[in-house]
């Protein structure tokens, strides 16, 4: 059996030609593939593989074709010379193809890393875009929220009836709300920006209060409900309840104090009034008890003294002694009656009467006395004042006391003004007795209604006038108020309520 060799030759020649053609086509496709995505290293790898295979196919194909043609062409000597080169190049191309192929794993890993990085970068980019967009919305939302919040707190700051102040640790007033400006008398054109606002510590009545307060805030970071006295720019003294907290301001490198200050002057005045009323009520109770116990024995002493005087002839030494006993007993009785009036235990006879007539009666009695001291009396009566149910005698005593006190405060040459006003809304009448006398010292003001308190010399007064007046007015469900400035004068105001039955008789 013989095996013809020509099919082998045919396959060799055709196969070699096809190898060369397809390998070149593969290179072409690899270029196309790479051009689709130049950054793709896998395509670059395939291009390298294609190149290596082309080198292999060309070297082998050309070699085989040359071999067959040279042998068939009876030139085996040429082939013998070319053969070692062809074989060697073939061997090299195998190695190159194998080596290039083995790069796949590394190329693949690199590409995967590139993909991961790319993906991560894309993700980060998208996230950044999203965040950026979201951030804009968030910033917008936060800005609106801040604006709302700022507006809200600004309103609280502006409309608060209490002082809100921002002060640095040195005492420089940085900001203060309108209530604070009003409380301290700071003009509105002064602002903290030009540091034109006065030093906060300068408003303290006692500088050491400010120093102590500042020290406490720095130590404890807060102070609550400290009661201090402030003096406004116009000299007004204001009692305040003060709370403060500190905050470290990094930009200014200093502590900032936030103050909330409440004016408690009125409350303190009311407390003082309540205390006074309470004190007077206690004294009244005591005085009433004493007066009641003394009144009867005093009556007996006076009665028997009068009996003894009747039996004693006038002009004798014994008669004069008895007269002295009678006079002093009467003085004592007057005092006791005054005490009873003050304590509201005295018998009252209330009847419908005109307040203006009552005041006129008093003025007619004292007018001559006042004219002697060049004191002018001015009247300003409100015609709307109705008739009142009152104890005319007692009220006469009240106005007499007030006018005589005014006279004594003036001394000589001055004026006394008596005003009446009817307030239909509050259903009350106010009778004010003003004078331009010496005024009352602030320290004496809380004590002027105390029984036996007097600033007059011995023998000039018992110190019962105002306390009796107080008792009488209180007995009429009214009140008596006083305002006074030393050197400028005083105003005593009697406030009387108007009952329904009074109104029926309205008009003077």
């Amino acid at each position, binding site marked *: *059996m*013989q*095996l*013809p*060799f*020509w*099919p*082998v*030759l045919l*396959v*060799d020649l*055709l*196969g*070699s030609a*096809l*190898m060369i053609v*397809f*390998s070149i*086509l*593969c290179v072409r*496709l*690899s270029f*196309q*593939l790479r051009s*689709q995505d130049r950054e*793709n290293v*896998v395509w670059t790898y*395939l291009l390298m*593989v*294609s190149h290596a*295979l082309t080198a292999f*196919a060309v070297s082998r194909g050309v070699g085989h074709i040359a071999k067959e043609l040279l*042998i*068939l062409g*009876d030139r*085996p000597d040429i082939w013998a010379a070319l053969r*070692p080169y062809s*074989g*060697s190049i*073939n*061997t*090299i191309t*195998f*190695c190159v*193809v*194998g*080596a290039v*192929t*083995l790069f*796949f*794993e590394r190329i*693949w*890993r690199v*590409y*995967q*890393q590139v*993909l*991961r990085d790319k*993906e991560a970068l894309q993700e980060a980019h998208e996230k950044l875009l999203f965040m950026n967009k979201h951030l804009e919305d968030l910033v917008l939302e936060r800005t609106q929220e801040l604006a709302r919040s700022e507006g809200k707190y600004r309103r609280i700051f502006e409309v608060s009836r209490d002082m809100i102040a921002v002060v640095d640790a040195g005492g420089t007033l940085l900001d203060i709300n309108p209530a604070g400006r009003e409380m301290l008398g700071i003009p509105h054109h002064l602002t903290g920006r030009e540091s034109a606002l006065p030093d906060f510590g300068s408003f303290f009545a006692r500088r050491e209060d400010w120093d102590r307060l500042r020290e406490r805030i720095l130590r404890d970071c807060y102070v609550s409900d400290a009661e201090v006295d402030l003096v406004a720019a116009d000299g007004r003294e204001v009692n305040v309840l003060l709370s403060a907290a500190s905050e470290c301001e990094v930009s200014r490198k200093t502590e900032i104090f936030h103050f909330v200050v409440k004016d408690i002057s009125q409350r303190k005045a009311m407390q003082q009034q309540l205390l006074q009323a309470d004190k007077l009520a206690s004294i009244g109770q005591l005085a009433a008890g004493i007066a009641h116990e003394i009144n009867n024995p005093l009556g007996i002493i006076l009665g028997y003294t009068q009996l003894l005087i009747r039996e004693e002839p006038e002009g004798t030494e014994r008669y004069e002694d008895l007269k002295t006993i009678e006079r002093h007993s009467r003085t004592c009785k007057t005092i006791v009656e005054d005490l009873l009036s003050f304590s509201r235990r005295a018998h009252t006879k209330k009847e419908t009467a005109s307040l203006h007539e009552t005041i006129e009666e008093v003025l007619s009695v004292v007018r001559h006395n006042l004219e002697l001291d060049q004191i002018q009396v001015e009247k300003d009566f409100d015609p709307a004042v109705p008739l009142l149910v009152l104890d005319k005698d007692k009220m006469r005593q009240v106005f007499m006391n007030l006018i005589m006190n005014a006279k004594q405060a003036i001394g000589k040459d001055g004026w006394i003004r008596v005003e009446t006003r009817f307030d239909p809304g509050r259903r009350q009448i106010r009778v004010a007795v003003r004078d331009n006398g010496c005024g009352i010292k602030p320290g004496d003001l809380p004590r002027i209604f105390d029984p036996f308190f007097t600033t007059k010399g011995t023998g000039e007064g018992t110190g019962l006038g105002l306390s009796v007046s107080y008792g009488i007015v209180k007995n009429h469900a009214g009140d008596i108020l006083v305002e006074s400035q030393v050197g400028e004068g005083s105003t005593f105001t009697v406030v009387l309520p108007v009952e329904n039955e009074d109104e029926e008789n309205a008009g003077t």
Partner: protein
Amino acid sequence: MKKGPTIFGRRKRFALFLGLLLVVVPRAVWATQVHAEPEGLYAHQLAHAFFLVSMGILVYWLRERHLTQHRGWRYLQYAAIFFILWNLDTMFVHHLEGREDLFLTFSKGTLQAALQPFPGREWLTWAFYLGKMDHLLCVPAILFLYLSLRELIRTGYRFPRSENG
């Protein structure tokens, strides 16, 4: 200013000339080791083996990465398999070419050339005869590579990102 040839340039050109001389005129070289004739065949066979192994590893990687699910990569896998078969075939043929106990060759170097197996060597002679037509394996291999590239271009293949790299 144009620069003249440097000393280094002259040395480089001299080395290139010497290299070419050694390649073009292969005569007795005073090397440290003599490379006798069988070395060429062994080197060639080893190159085939290296080619074969690299193709085997490529197949493994393609399958490991699940790339063969796509037709383009599947064709590349087929190309690699055909190259493996081709390498086995050629290694086998190169091995038999050196043997003189298999067949006689008549009219060598003509179109009438034919093989006459020695008695009892018919199967091996047949195997050698078929193995000599190795292009029946390497042409499909390069054809699959061509198809693979064409498919990858056609489908606009996009690589999936695998978690393990």
